[in-house]
């Protein structure tokens, strides 16, 4: 209730400042429309002088435009279109047209020195109302779609910029120099002592790097592939951490082909290692488990990343915040409120990150 009231009040806030150059541009366009309308009228009524329809057309058109275009600043705009949201968006043009028509007629009559409201002008009146309505709708639609177009463009550019930035940050966290150089240092040792294992590791690293670099390009892949990528990363970390790290991946056969966003789980597993296991002298164990549970709107896919590490730090370091917020953002953009990420500290210690979103059957 109070929210609705607040919204109604909010509708009266002048949300956007007036851009006078834009208004001048709109005025000139409106006047151009008026000239065209007057010309069409003249074409149909060659015996009439051109200046009378022109004066009427200019007076009515300009007044309609001024009422609507300035009136819309009294209301809160819809962010997608810039047009007033809700009821005002319909009432404003209607009022603008009626008042503009009546006022414009008076203005034009005073300008021409006679009135079209003279008796017997019924047909004339019908024509002028018809023209006003048609012309108004055409002009309103023209402006509405133009404004919507520029706003959508601006929002698309913004979204593109954000996506590019997110992509870059993802790359920066995934290709963290510490991880890269340490892995290479391990490989350098293995090449001398265990060439076969070194080859295996290099293959894993290639897969990991390729997935990281292409994660942004493809949006979905089967859950089995996602688990395979996690295995690459975990194997690389197991090589580095030795006996301090153990892991299990549990993926039921029925869920292998289910589509999931690429590398969605990667940041969670990385957090489990970096903030859970690495600070602990004894290390620990990571288990990733996929399953399903019934939801309000059909079955849900549930994936848990559990570690027996140090638990959540009181103030998460920036990297961790980015990891979690990145997972949340991706879930929200794909599934809205149906996709959730829940991070808990179980009583037994460690951390458990749980991702839930609607289960879509395999294609």
């Amino acid at each position: 209730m109070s929210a609705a009231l607040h919204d109604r009040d909010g509708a009266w806030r002048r949300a956007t400042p007036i851009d006078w150059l834009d208004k001048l541009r709109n005025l000139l366009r409106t006047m151009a429309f008026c000239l065209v309308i007057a010309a069409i009228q003249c074409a149909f009524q060659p015996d009439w002088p051109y200046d009378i329809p022109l004066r009427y057309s200019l007076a009515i058109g300009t007044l309609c435009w001024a009422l609507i275009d300035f009136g819309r600043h009294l209301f809160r705009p819809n962010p997608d279109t810039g047009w007033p949201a809700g009821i005002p968006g319909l009432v404003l043009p209607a009022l603008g047209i009626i008042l503009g028509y009546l006022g414009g007629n008076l203005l034009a009559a005073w300008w021409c020195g006679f009135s079209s409201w003279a008796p017997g002008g019924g047909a004339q009146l019908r024509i002028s109302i018809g023209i006003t309505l048609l012309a108004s709708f055409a002009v309103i639609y023209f402006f509405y779609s133009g404004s919507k177009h520029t706003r959508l463009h601006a929002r698309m550019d913004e979204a593109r910029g954000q996506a590019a930035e997110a992509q870059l940050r993802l790359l920066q966290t995934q290709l963290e120099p510490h991880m890269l150089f340490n892995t290479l240092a391990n490989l350098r040792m293995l090449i001398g002592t265990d060439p076969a294992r070194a080859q295996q590791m290099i293959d894993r690293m290639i897969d990991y790097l390729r997935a990281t670099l292409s994660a942004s390009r493809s949006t979905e892949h089967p859950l089995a592939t996602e688990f395979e990528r996690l295995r690459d990363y975990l194997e690389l970390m197991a090589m580095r951490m030795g006996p301090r790290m153990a892991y299990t991946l549990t993926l039921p056969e029925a869920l292998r082909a289910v589509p999931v966003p690429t590398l969605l789980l990667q940041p969670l597993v990385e957090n489990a290692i970096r903030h859970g296991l690495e600070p602990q002298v004894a290390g620990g164990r990571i288990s990733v488990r996929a399953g399903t549970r019934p939801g309000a709107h059909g079955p849900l896919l549930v994936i848990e990343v559990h570690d027996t590490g140090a638990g959540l730090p009181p103030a998460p370091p920036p990297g961790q915040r980015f990891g979690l917020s990145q997972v949340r953002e991706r879930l929200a953009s794909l599934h809205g409120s149906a996709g959730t990420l829940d991070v808990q500290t179980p009583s037994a210690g460690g951390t458990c990150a749980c991702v839930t979103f609607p289960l879509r059957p395999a294609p």
Partner: protein
Amino acid sequence: MNQPAPRALIAEDEPLLAAALQQELSRAWPGLQIVATVGDGLSAVRQALALQPELLFFDIRMPGQSGLDAAVELAEDWPGTGPSARPFPALVFVTAYDQYAVQAFEAQAIDYLLKPIQPARLQKTVQKLQQALANHAPYAIDLEATMAQLRHLLAAPGVVPGSSASSGAALTLIPASSGNRVHMVPVAEVLYFEAADKYVRVLTAAREFLIRTPLKELIAQLDQRVFWQIHRSTLVRADAITTVTRDEAGKLHLELTGRPEKLPVSRLYAHLFKAM
């Protein structure tokens, strides 16, 4: 005079890398004896104190305690004088990649090694160490210089994860909970802070409180001119210091007005109390 074979300790949490460093060192310096290899910062300090080697190779990112913190702790606990005193070991940091750390090391005489370790680069380090050990009999790597370098490193941004050189908002009141009450302790009344296990003790002339905020975070929120760090775990109000005394072992202790305790000053901060 024939010197015994120099002994080294390696602290590196990744087993393969520890083995690799050991291997490369045995090639570059066949006479060197590796007396221990440990995988975390806490063991590094323990083992170094127990074995007292001449050389230390510390990884920076380790579980439990970073290589830098381990070095600081070791410097504080190293027996400096007396019959059992030995010179402080020559310290080499090993790091995978850390721009700031590298920058900090560039200006220092303590060497650093970048992983993956290249034999040619290691050879240079070995030469440096051999020279340092040969120049002095008994080889004294200057502890004072080491302390200055460590201080410099600790202050360098980005070297120690979570530490920031920028000071946050100045703290004026400290909420300290006891039972179901929260006492608001004015910072102006605090004489010193002391880290104890998971807590930090906040001491005024009359009372003592416990808070959970780590000392490192407190330091960032306090005026450095008002509160001086005199030890890894102690922060004192500078204008409450009355006397500084040196005991027979060469350690400094200071006393504060309004408190009976004698607080130890670590080597790292002893330079604050050099008489003018």
